């Protein structure tokens, strides 16, 4: 166990034994080497298999909406997760007073796909060390540069340090240039419309409509997803261009002002589909038009959910524009 | 009219035409459709296989299919009756159909009631809500002069939430005049001018207390009614082998392929929808 893991474990045990939390949501070692498993500890005595490393790829805020509001939930949160929690609290998914956030400054998530690309899909074990990742395979042991394995969303991350936590474990990390995400959007927009459409077509046509992106996303908590709605039906149900493109574009739009660019959708996708470029674009738009960044706090209403009599758009009585 | 080429495609419906369409309930949530076959060979093929308790997939093209129990007996004529509760996309579309309109039908599907095994037995028919429609088909079948002698006593217990939701009113009213059967109707809460039972079906069953001797009980209703009626019958002394029910599932193909109606070793669409309580007890509690 690393020192960081020991400290998280001690905190989890304390919270449980002092009845400050009904459940501590963290990670434990899974049965497969590339992905630790979200873990739900309820007993201080049984927290021993807790792990925390760069392979912890899920956004744990995703599990928040599975609990009744009165449950006291403690959760390990990195920067993006803390923003997702804020966004969920803002949307009344759980009262903040029943949450206890154990913040961890994040060194970035290691993308299992990049490991697989480097060593093949047959992986026996992975060790995340400070600057390197050691991967054991039937073909032998590989030492990989950690920086080169970082998930795309983490490369562009603007909030590595968790926000609004109840306790923070580990030293704060340096934040990156906040324009990295915008750069990506700009570069993509610079491509011609044909190229951009071709890219979207190629990405969406690999979709198998397993909805792992939806299920991995903390903000996709709707009781009934639009794709399952029958009256009216919003998209074709099959793996047709209309169905697959419809799914990805509408999913992205539903995230406007809510997505925290955590990239959990992309990491869950079994077909390596890039989809964060759509939400990144919407995120930059939200900033440019409304100076809004999702999840910075749990109070500022998202522009599309806010109601204001002084709204500049004419659809509100008293609005100023004609 | 929809035409249908001769084809082994089991997903291809038989073309049908609406003969009659009328509301069953005052709130217009229940509508009965009587359908005629467009092609005579389809009619012959249907009635060769048909048995009360079976269901069909009704199609409105552009909307989809919906599984519905048949609400008529073969002797009633060359039509097939269904009572449709307005619930989702397809049932809403079915409600909009008028006499003369076209639709598709696949069926009859499923096993139906094991009538041969019930020969000589008293039948206790217990229904609730719109699920009574298949029991209506069973009652109509048994009532026919040619079939009536095959069975002993006939008791029908039928409950609805309110009098406005009672189906087949005029016909059921006439059953009270018959001397070869007993009818008990119930509504959940008292209403003025209601002279029959008031209360939930399981309680009415306990009150009427039909004899289990040489009897079978057939229960069709909403899941909650079935859940409490089955033990009530066991309490009255009905062995599980003599209690039957028809399961509702989200059936799609009706052929045991699409997998969705799987419960343990059974596919409800193919092996059911009619099961005895003894058979259900042997299945995982996935109902």
């Amino acid at each position, binding site marked *: 166990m690393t020192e960081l893991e020991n400290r998280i474990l001690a905190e989890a045990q304390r919270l449980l034994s002092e009845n400050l939390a009904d459940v501590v949501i963290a990670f434990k070692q*899974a*049965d497969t080497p*590339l992905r630790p498993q979200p873990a739900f500890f309820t007993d201080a005595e049984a927290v021993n298999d807790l792990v925390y490393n760069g392979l912890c790829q899920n956004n744990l805020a995703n599990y928040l909406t599975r609990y009744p509001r009165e449950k006291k939930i403690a959760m390990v949160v990195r920067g993006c997760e803390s923003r997702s929690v804020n966004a969920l609290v803002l949307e009344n998914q759980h009262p903040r007073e029943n949450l206890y956030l154990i913040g961890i400054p994040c060194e970035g998530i290691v993308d299992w796909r990049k490991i697989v690309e480097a060593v093949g899909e047959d992986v026996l074990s992975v060790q995340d060390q400070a600057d390197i990742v050691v991967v054991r395979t039937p073909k032998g042991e590989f030492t990989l540069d950690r920086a080169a394995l970082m998930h795309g969303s983490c490369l562009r991350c603007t909030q590595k340090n968790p926000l609004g936590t109840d306790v923070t474990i580990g030293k704060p990390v340096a934040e990156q240039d906040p324009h990295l995400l915008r750069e990506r959007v700009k570069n993509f927009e610079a491509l011609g419309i044909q190229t951009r459409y071709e890219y979207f077509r190629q990405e969406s046509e690999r979709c198998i409509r397993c909805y792992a992106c939806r299920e991995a996303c903390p903000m996709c908590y709707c009781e009934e997803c639009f794709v399952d709605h029958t009256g009216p039906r919003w998209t*074709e149900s099959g793996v047709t261009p209309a169905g697959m493109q419809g799914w990805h574009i509408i999913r992205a739009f539903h995230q406007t002002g809510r997505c925290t660019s955590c990239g959990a959708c992309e990491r869950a996708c079994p077909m*390596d589909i890039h989809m964060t470029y759509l939400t990144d674009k919407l995120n930059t738009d939200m900033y440019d038009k409304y100076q809004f960044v999702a999840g910075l706090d749990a109070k500022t209403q998202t522009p599309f959910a806010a109601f204001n009599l002084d709204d500049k758009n004419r659809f509100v009585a008293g609005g100023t524009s004609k | 009219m929809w035409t249908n080429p001769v084809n082994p*495609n*089991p997903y291809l419906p038989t073309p049908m035409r609406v003969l009659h369409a009328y509301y069953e309930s005052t709130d217009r949530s229940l509508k009965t459709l009587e359908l005629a076959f467009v092609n005579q060979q389809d009619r012959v093929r249907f009635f060769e296989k048909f048995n009360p308790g079976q269901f069909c997939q009704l199609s409105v093209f*552009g909307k989809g299919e919906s599984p519905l129990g048949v609400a008529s007996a073969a002797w009633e004529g060359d039509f097939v009756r269904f009572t449709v509760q307005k619930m989702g996309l397809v049932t809403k579309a079915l409600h909009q159909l008028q006499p003369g309109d076209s639709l598709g039908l696949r069926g009859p599907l499923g096993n139906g009631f094991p009538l041969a095994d019930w020969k000589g037995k008293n039948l206790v028919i217990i229904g609730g809500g719109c699920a009574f429609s298949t029991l209506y088909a069973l009652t109509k079948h048994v009532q026919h002069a040619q079939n009536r002698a095959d069975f002993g006593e006939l008791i029908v217990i039928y409950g609805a939430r309110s009098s406005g939701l009672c189906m087949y009113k005029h016909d059921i009213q006439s059953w009270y005049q018959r001397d070869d059967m007993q009818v008990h109707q119930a509504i959940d809460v008292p209403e003025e001018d209601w002279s029959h039972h008031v209360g939930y079906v399981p309680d009415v069953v306990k009150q009427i207390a039909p004899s289990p001797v040489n009897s079978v009980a057939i229960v069709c209703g909403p899941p909650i009614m079935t859940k409490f009626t089955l033990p009530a019958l066991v309490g009255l002394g009905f062995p599980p082998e003599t209690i039957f029910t028809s399961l509702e599932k989200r059936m799609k193909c009706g052929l045991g*392929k*699409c997998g969705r109606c799987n419960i343990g070793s059974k596919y409800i669409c193919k092996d059911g929808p009619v099961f005895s309580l003894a058979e259900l007890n042997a299945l995982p509690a996935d109902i």
Partner: protein
Amino acid sequence: MTYLLKKSEVNQTLRAWTSKAHVYAPQKVQKYAQFLPVGEDFELSVEEPHNTRFPPKALFLPQSETLLKYNPQKRELESAKTPDQPRIIFGIRPCDAKAVTLLDSVFSSEDNPDPFWQARRDQSVLVGLGCDQPCATCFCTSVESGPFDRSGLDAILTDLGDTYAVEPLTERGVSLFENLTVASAETTQTIQAIQEKATREMPIAFGREGLKAHLDELFENEIWEDFAKSCLGCGICTFLCPTCFCFDIVDEVRKSTRERNWDTCMFKVYSIEASGHNPRPSRRERTRQRLMHKYSYWLDHTGQTGCTGCGRCVRYCPVGLDIRAMVRKSVATPSEVPHVD
């Protein structure tokens, strides 16, 4: 008789077959391999020690498929055409071919054969590629199969370095490989040794004895709740599974068609009934259905386990749920433990 096919001649052989059939083989899509039609610029991709990411069941049961067309104006129905082209599927792994034979029990059943499945089956020749180096997520020998299982195959290949040994298993298989060099007795022995070694070295993931009965007794156990806790409820494990076959039927208005699309018991809407009642309302029941269907109900239906140990669900689960570990944990759970709400 065993033949030898030089790897350097595979591309050319497959291209030559395209004159008489549609030929499908694993090819690279982005960074993974998938079965695609062999065309002019075809390049075989079988370097990964395991199967393609997307299962070849889709060659027989496409994820989306038209069942019929309707013409709203003329009020005519038209059955979708059943495919009538001969096909050769090259490089299918034994687990995936075995899965196709399992699915035959559903789609080629005597009472109601599915004409679309049947047509594709009748017209397909399956050339399998045995697995001489089974990988960490494979467990075919634990589920009545093996790295050189011949089920469903018309011929099976064994990798000999720069050559494939070809063992035709059916007449169709024989006709595909007519003019090849015959392997020597010595080579035949080598092949046998490779196949036996691969089978022998495959670790057993769990014991199957008494497994079904035990799982049946665990139906109400809290173990399912435990598995479901981290489960996202996505469709990866079932859509990538070579034996999962559930589908939904929907009408597509824009195309005036009725289509079937793969569906999965892992989705909430899958089981919800017209009355609104959902017999599998939470992930607990849905996770249970997936595992129980494969390891119990399939045995009721066909006497065989509905899993061929391909390992896809293990490799791609976003939360690292491993069906082998789930089975092992089930086995380790005493069945008398009551379910606690």
